[in-house]
C-alpha cells in the first residue's frame, strides 16, 4: 500500500538505544519511541482511547496518564518520549485513581445503550471499566444528549451520545484517506463529531472508522444488529477481493459470514481494508448453491452423480480439442497447481489462463486496492495456469472460435463487456464444463456443471500481486453435495487414469514447495498468519 501520512513521521529515524524502567521492569527501546510504545513492545499494556499507532497523537482522552519520577504531575504515556533512565509507574495508586477518574468522566454522559449497542463485547469503555474502574457512578444529574442513529454514509452510522470525542475518526480521514469528511464541532461537553456541510462519508475506505472507533459511536450499517460479537467464530484469512491480499478475520456464525474485519499486517494492508473488500463476501457467498452435479440431457440440465458427471466431463472434453481452461483468480495456489497439471496431462494442447480484468482506480482506492478482481492471479500463473498473451488473448481466441471445448472454473464470463460474443462462442463449443458455487449464466450453457466451494470454505494459499504468499483458512463448512475445487481436479485426474493421492491442501502445498523453484522451502508453518514474501530471484 502507498504510505499514509501522519504518524508515519513518528517512525524511528534514529536507532539509538534507550533503557528505561516501567513498573520495575527494565525496558530496552530506541530513541523516538513514546512511553506507551516502549511499554507495548515490552508487553505492558497502558489503557488508551485516542492513541492509535497509525494516526497522529491527539492526547485528549487522558486515559494513558502514568507517573514518571521527577515529574510533578502525571504525564500521558502516548506523547512522552522514552528517555534514558526514565522511571515510569503505570500501576501506582495515583495512576489507578486517575484512570478511575477518567473512566467516571467518560461515563457520566454516556447513554445506557449497551443492550442495543453493537460494540458490546468489543468496547473499550466496557473492557476498561471492568479492568480499571468497577466503581458505581456518582453522577445523579440529567445526561447531555446528542444526535443518535445519524447516517454518515452508505455504511456508517453515528451515535453522538456514545462518542467520547477521541477524534480517531477525524484523524483517520485527515491523514489516511485525506478526504476530511468529519470534524469536531461545538465546544465543551456539547462537542460532537459532524460531517462537513454537503459531505457524506462515502470514500472507498470509509468503514475503517468503525474499526478504529473505540466505542459504539461509529458502527457498521451492514453488520447492525446481526449478531453479538462474542458469538462470532473468528477465522484468519485473506480477502478475495483483489490481488492486494488484505489480511482479514472472517467473523462467522451458524455457518454464515457476518462480517470481515481487517487483520493487522504492516507488509500488506496495515490496519485497514477497503469497503468493497470488506463486503465482498456478500456477492461471493450469498448465492443459491449448487449441491449436485448437473448434466445436459435433452436440452436441459438435470442432476446427476459425481461419477457420471466427471466421466462425462472427461470424455466430452477429450474429443473437443483444443480445449481452453479458465481458472478463477479466487482459486488457491493448491487448486491452480492441480488444474494446470490436469489440463496439460489430460488435454494436450490445452490453453489455460487465470481470469484477469483491469480497471481504473481512484486516488483513495489506490491506497489499498489493486486494479483487478483476481486475488491469486499471480499465484495461479506461477503454478502454471498461464499461456502466451495472457487472459485477454485466450478470451479473444475463444471469441474467435479457436477452441472446441472449455473448462471454466469459478467465473461467469457473460457479464464481461463483450458478453454477447462470448455467449455465442460458448454456445458453439462442442463441450463446455463449468465448475462454480452457483448456476451462473455461463453455467446454464454448460454440458456438465460441477458444484464447488467458495473462498470462505477453502484452506489454501494466495500469492498476492507483490509476491507475498498468504494463507486462507476455512471459516465455513461447504454444503453437502459440493466438493472442493482441488478435490474435483484430483478426481478428474484419477478418472483419467492418473491417480494422485493428496488428502489435504497442505500436502499439495508440500508438492508445490518441491516442484516450483520460487516456493522452495515454504510450508504452512512458515507462512503462518503473517505470510511470506517471495524473493525476486528464481
Amino acid at each position, binding site marked *: 500500500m502507498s504510505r499514509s501520512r501522519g504518524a508515519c513521521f513518528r517512525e524511528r529515524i534514529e536507532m539509538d538505544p534507550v533503557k528505561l524502567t516501567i513498573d520495575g521492569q527494565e525496558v530496552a527501546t530506541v530513541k523516538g519511541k513514546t512511553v506507551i510504545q516502549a511499554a507495548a513492545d515490552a508487553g505492558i499494556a497502558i489503557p488508551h482511547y485516542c492513541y492509535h499507532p497509525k494516526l497522529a497523537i491527539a492526547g*485528549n*482522552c487522558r486515559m494513558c496518564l502514568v507517573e514518571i519520577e521527577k515529574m510533578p504531575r502525571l504525564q500521558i504515556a502516548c506523547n512522552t518520549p522514552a528517555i534514558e533512565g526514565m522511571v515510569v509507574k503505570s500501576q501506582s495508586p495515583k495512576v489507578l485513581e486517575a484512570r478511575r477518574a477518567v473512566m*467516571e*468522566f*467518560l461515563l457520566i454522559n454516556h447513554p445506557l445503550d449497551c443492550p442495543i449497542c453493537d460494540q458490546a463485547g468489543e468496547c473499550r469503555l466496557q473492557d476498561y471499566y471492568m479492568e480499571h474502574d468497577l466503581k458505581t457512578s456518582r453522577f445523579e444529574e440529567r445526561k447531555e444528549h446528542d444526535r443518535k442513529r445519524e447516517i454518515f454514509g452508505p455504511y456508517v452510522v453515528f451515535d453522538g451520545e456514545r462518542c467520547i470525542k477521541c477524534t480517531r475518526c477525524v484523524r483517520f480521514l485527515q491523514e489516511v484517506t485525506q478526504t476530511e469528511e468529519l470534524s469536531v464541532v461545538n465546544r*465543551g461537553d456539547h462537542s460532537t463529531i459532524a460531517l462537513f456541510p454537503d459531505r457524506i462519508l462515502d470514500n472507498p475506505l470509509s468503514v475503517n472508522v468503525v474499526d478504529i472507533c473505540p466505542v459504539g459511536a461509529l458502527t457498521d450499517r451492514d453488520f447492525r444488529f446481526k449478531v453479538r460479537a462474542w458469538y462470532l467464530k473468528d477465522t484468519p484469512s485473506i480477502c478475495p477481493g483483489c490481488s492486494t491480499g488484505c489480511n482479514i478475520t472472517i467473523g462467522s456464525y451458524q455457518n454464515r459470514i457476518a462480517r470481515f474485519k481487517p487483520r493487522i499486517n504492516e507488509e500488506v494492508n496495515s490496519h485497514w481494508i477497503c469497503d468493497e473488500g470488506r463486503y465482498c463476501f456478500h456477492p461471493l457467498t450469498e448465492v443459491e448453491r449448487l449441491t449436485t452435479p448437473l448434466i445436459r440431457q435433452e436440452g436441459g440440465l438435470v442432476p446427476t452423480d459425481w461419477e457420471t458427471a466427471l466421466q462425462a466431463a472427461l470424455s466430452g472434453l477429450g474429443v473437443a480439442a483444443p480445449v481452453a481452461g479458465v481458472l478463477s483468480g479466487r482459486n488457491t495456489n493448491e487448486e491452480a497447481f492441480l488444474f494446470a497439471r490436469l489440463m496439460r496431462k489430460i488435454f494436450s494442447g490445452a490453453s489455460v489462463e487465470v481470469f484477469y480484468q483491469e480497471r481504473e482506480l481512484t486516488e483513495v482506492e489506490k491506497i489499498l486496492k489493486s486494479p483487478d478482481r483476481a486475488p491469486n492471479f499471480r499465484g495461479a500463473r506461477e503454478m502454471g495456469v498461464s499461456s502466451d498473451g495472457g487472459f485477454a488473448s485466450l478470451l479473444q481466441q475463444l471469441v474467435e472460435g479457436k477452441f472446441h471445448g472449455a473448462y471454466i472454473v469459478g467465473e461467469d464470463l457473460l457479464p464481461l463487456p463483450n458478453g454477447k460474443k462470448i455467449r455465442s462462442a460458448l454456445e458453439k463449443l462442442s463441450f463446455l464444463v463449468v465448475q462454480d458455487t452457483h448456476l451462473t449464466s455461463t453455467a446454464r450453457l454448460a454440458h456438465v456443471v460441477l458444484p464447488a466451494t467458495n473462498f470462505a470454505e477453502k484452506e489454501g494459499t494466495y500469492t498476492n500481486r507483490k509476491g507475498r504468499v498468504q494463507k486462507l483458512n476455512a471459516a465455513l463448512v461447504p454444503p453437502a453435495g459440493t466438493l472442493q475445487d482441488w478435490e474435483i481436479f484430483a478426481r478428474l485426474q484419477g478418472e483419467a487414469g492418473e491417480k494422485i493421492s493428496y488428502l489435504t491442501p497442505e500436502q499439495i502445498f508440500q508438492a508445490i514447495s518441491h516442484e516450483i523453484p520460487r516456493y522452495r522451502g515454504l510450508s504452512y508453518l512458515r507462512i503462518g498468519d503473517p505470510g511470506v514474501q517471495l524473493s525476486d530471484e528464481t
Partner: protein
Amino acid sequence: MPVLRADEIGQVRMDYESMQAAGTLLGSGGVIVMDDSTCMVKAAWNIARFFAHESCGQCTPCREGCHWMEKIFWRIENGQGRNGDLDLVLNISGNITGNTICPFGDAAAWPAAAFIKKYREEFEAHVAQQRCVLS
C-alpha cells in the same frame, strides 16, 4: 482562582508571590469583589457555568467535569442539594486538577473547591435547608 475571604485579605499585596503565598494566584490581574449580600453558592455556580461554557472540550476531565460541577452547584443553589454534593465537587475538582491538556481545567477546578472550602457553612446551609439561605 481560589477566592480569598475578607479576613484573609489582610496585608496581601497584588503581586505574584504574595498572592501565591496567600493560597491563590494573581492570574490576569482582574479582581472581583463581593460583599455579604452575594450568595457564595450562586457565585460558585456562576463561575462554574462560565468555565463549563468556555471549556474547549478537547480533554475528558475538563469537558465532562466542568459541566458536572456546574450542575451540582445549580442544584444546591436551587434547593436541590444532596448530602455528599460538597465532597463530590471537591473530589471532581481534584480529579480534574493536573490531568488536563491545558491549565483551563485547573482554573475551573480551583475556584469550585475554594468556594466550598472557604464558605462551607453557607453551602451546608443551602443543602440542609433545601433553599438559598441568602434570598
